[in-house]
């Protein structure tokens, strides 16, 4: 749970931003520390002034809190601070590239920070909602959270966009836009119909074998080595047909095949700018899965090795199936095909940062099933590497627009639609 505490704290902060909730004490600090750490990882020395402005503008860290956060990070040895008396002048990131920020902060939290009742309740709510949407009443009963604390957590959950409470089939369902991006109504309805545990079980099986061909899963009744019960098969069909899982498709040999992934992560785990990288990674995984499971003649035995080779060498040896198999990658400009002899094509990677990131994500997804490192805001990282003038110009431009968060509250939109429909 330790690493997850830091992850959930990050998620919570991404939703709350600068909103101050009096019931929270240590959790926002942890969240801000995680946010900051994730963004400065791998960068060089940063001027304190630049860091102050960038963290305020992009990461929602009020400048007043920055000192305290940096002191936490210093204690965890993620940064070194260059001070002159009481003033911090420079911040030197000290996070090795292969270290997991969440693990380090999670360990710190478990030994140094004590969460109060509301914070603990929030953490368990987030943990449950990450698995799948939950039935409000049964979740509350199972978790044993006090009713008033629960209600309060739901209240600020809605404000921060962390969760929304919806009615489906007469039951009240909690669902989190942090963790699910597509067709939240459909997901709530599914949980109301079949229960959270059935949904979680299907999603876990998909996660263990990301990118599995849909038709193969439905016909053979299993994904990878996990067997699907008949209800799970029906559930899988429902999830894909109603857009809760949006499987990428590859056309080859006159047929179309869809490849199943876990639902696209929501706003906390997938920063908007990284959506393109996510799509490309899914395309990469689908392509090698096709080669692994639906090859015309030559099966790919080790899809992970193929992707690693593409990353290291930059191209794949030619074969006859490459043209159809990797067509999507060419369309998305991840790679290009070179014909070496008639009918035999080599796949070459387009060496650009997005494609490298996509390849890394694809390898992670195949290996662990997890989508990681997609929450980082790239604009923030760029701003951190530049000087004060750059960040000042961005801040000034933003001041002219309304600096409120977008009103994407689905409840409000629905009520608005009601009014427009109803009035004479």
């Amino acid at each position: 749970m330790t690493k997850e505490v830091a992850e959930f704290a990050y998620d919570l902060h991404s939703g709350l931003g600068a909103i101050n909730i009096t019931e929270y004490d240590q959790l926002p600090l942890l969240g801000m520390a995680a946010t900051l750490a994730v963004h400065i990882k791998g960068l060089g020395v940063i001027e304190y002034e630049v860091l102050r402005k960038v963290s305020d503008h992009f990461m929602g860290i009020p400048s007043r809190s920055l000192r305290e956060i940096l002191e936490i990070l210093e204690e965890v040895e993620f940064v070194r601070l260059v001070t002159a008396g009481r003033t911090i002048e420079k911040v030197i990131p000290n996070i090795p590239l292969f270290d997991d920020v969440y693990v380090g902060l999670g360990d710190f939290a478990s030994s140094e920070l004590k969460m109060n009742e509301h914070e603990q309740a929030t953490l368990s709510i987030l943990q449950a909602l990450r698995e799948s949407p939950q039935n409000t009443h049964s979740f509350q009963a199972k978790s044993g959270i006090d009713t008033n604390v629960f209600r309060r957590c739901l209240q600020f959950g809605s404000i921060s966009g962390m969760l929304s409470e919806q009615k489906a089939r007469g039951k009240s369902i909690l669902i989190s836009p942090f963790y699910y991006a597509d067709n939240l109504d459909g997901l709530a309805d599914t949980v109301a119909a079949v229960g959270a545990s059935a949904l979680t079980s299907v999603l876990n099986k998909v996660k263990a074998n990301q990118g599995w061909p849909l038709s193969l899963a439905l016909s053979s009744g299993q994904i990878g080595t996990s067997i699907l019960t008949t209800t799970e098969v029906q559930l899988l069909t429902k999830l894909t047909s109603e857009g809760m899982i949006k499987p990428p498709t590859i056309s080859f040999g006159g047929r179309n095949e869809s490849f199943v992934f876990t639902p696209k992560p929501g706003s906390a785990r997938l920063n908007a700018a990284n959506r393109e990288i996510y799509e490309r990674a899914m395309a990469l995984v689908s392509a090698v899965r096709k080669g692994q499971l639906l090859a015309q003649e030559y099966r790919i035995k080790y899809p992970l090795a193929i992707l690693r080779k593409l990353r290291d060498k930059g191209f794949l040896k030619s074969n006859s199936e490459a043209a159809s198999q990797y067509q999507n990658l060419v369309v998305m400009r991840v790679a290009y095909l070179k014909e070496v002899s008639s009918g035999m094509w080599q796949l070459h990677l387009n060496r650009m940062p997005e494609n490298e990131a996509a390849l890394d994500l694809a390898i992670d997804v195949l290996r662990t099933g997890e989508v990681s490192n997609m929450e980082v805001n790239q604009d923030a990282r760029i701003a951190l590497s530049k000087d004060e003038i750059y960040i000042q110009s961005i801040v000034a431009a933003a001041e002219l627009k309304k600096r409120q968060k977008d009103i994407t509250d689905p409840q409000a939109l629905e009520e608005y639609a009601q009014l427009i429909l109803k009035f004479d």
Partner: protein
Amino acid sequence: MAKFDKDRHQKQLALRYCLAQGYLPCLEVVVNTASDLTSKPEVLTDIDVLGIENIADGTLRRIVFDCKSSNKLGAISRAFWASGLMKYTGADGAFVILGKPAVFNHRISALKVDVDLHDERSFEELGRTIAQDFNTDSCYQASIERWDVAHAAFAKSKWAEDIFALCHYTAPLSLKPEQTFRKILAAIRKNRGDFDPEKDDHVAIVFDIISYMFILWARMGRDLRRIYSPTMRRENFEDALRLYVWGGHESYAIRQAILENSLRAGMAGNAAGDLQEFPAWKRFVSFVGLVISSPDDIFRCAEMCREFSIRQVSPHNADFDEKIKKRFKTNNRLAQFITAATSYVTEACRLPTDLEKKINDQVLTFS
């Protein structure tokens, strides 16, 4: 429904008379005040049975049936009352079924104000001139007990109160069908989280709503047929349909202006696309295109859906089912329109998709 208990026998007579005549019966239609000056709507009176007749091409005639077994008010006074009610609600004819027979001079005088005075015996004889067996339990709708059961099912779902009021009270008397239609859609959307396809009661409610919608569409279909011409381009028809269903050009323009202002005030842009167009617009256009080809059948669908609604919560009867099957066989539009309507309502109000499946499967087993 406790309300149905008063003058029960007479109500059932009126009900069966409507069915024999081919009218669509609506029980206990509450009439509200014409003015809207208090926060809660005020009830003036209620119509015991309202029969809706489709003359041709969506022109609807409404007949009021008033059942009074007590004799507090004299016969002719009752006739004048009914005539006033007719004028107020825009009905075209009225029957008053009294406890005691009225004097024949009064009866002929009452005809002058389009009110037909009867007592139970004479009304039954009138019914028998149409069909000898009119006073028999011939279909699901024909027994007041079943209406009781259906009403109890609706009363169990408190969340459906608004929808119920709109459908049962406003829709039968509505002179502005597109407005009532929009309001019904809004009311369903508000409560869409409460519909559970597993519950028969809820399925019955949906059938009921759709049957009332068909009454509205019968009227709208008539107007829309006047808009449509075979040489018209699709976009032109769509534009006219859009303005029609939003209540006219000015109404539509105001809504667009409100939307733009909200966008400027910071409402999320991508969600606004959902609001700019009428719910499930594409499917609505297809539905309209489908039903204007045969507007008379729209009304018949209302009867069928009412049968299905009551059937959902009553024990099944093989004879009645046979009758339904026969109707479907002779009229190939019924299944087509009903399934199209269900698909539209499910998409427009974002109801659970297996609700649509369940309803369509039921309808298709009969066709």
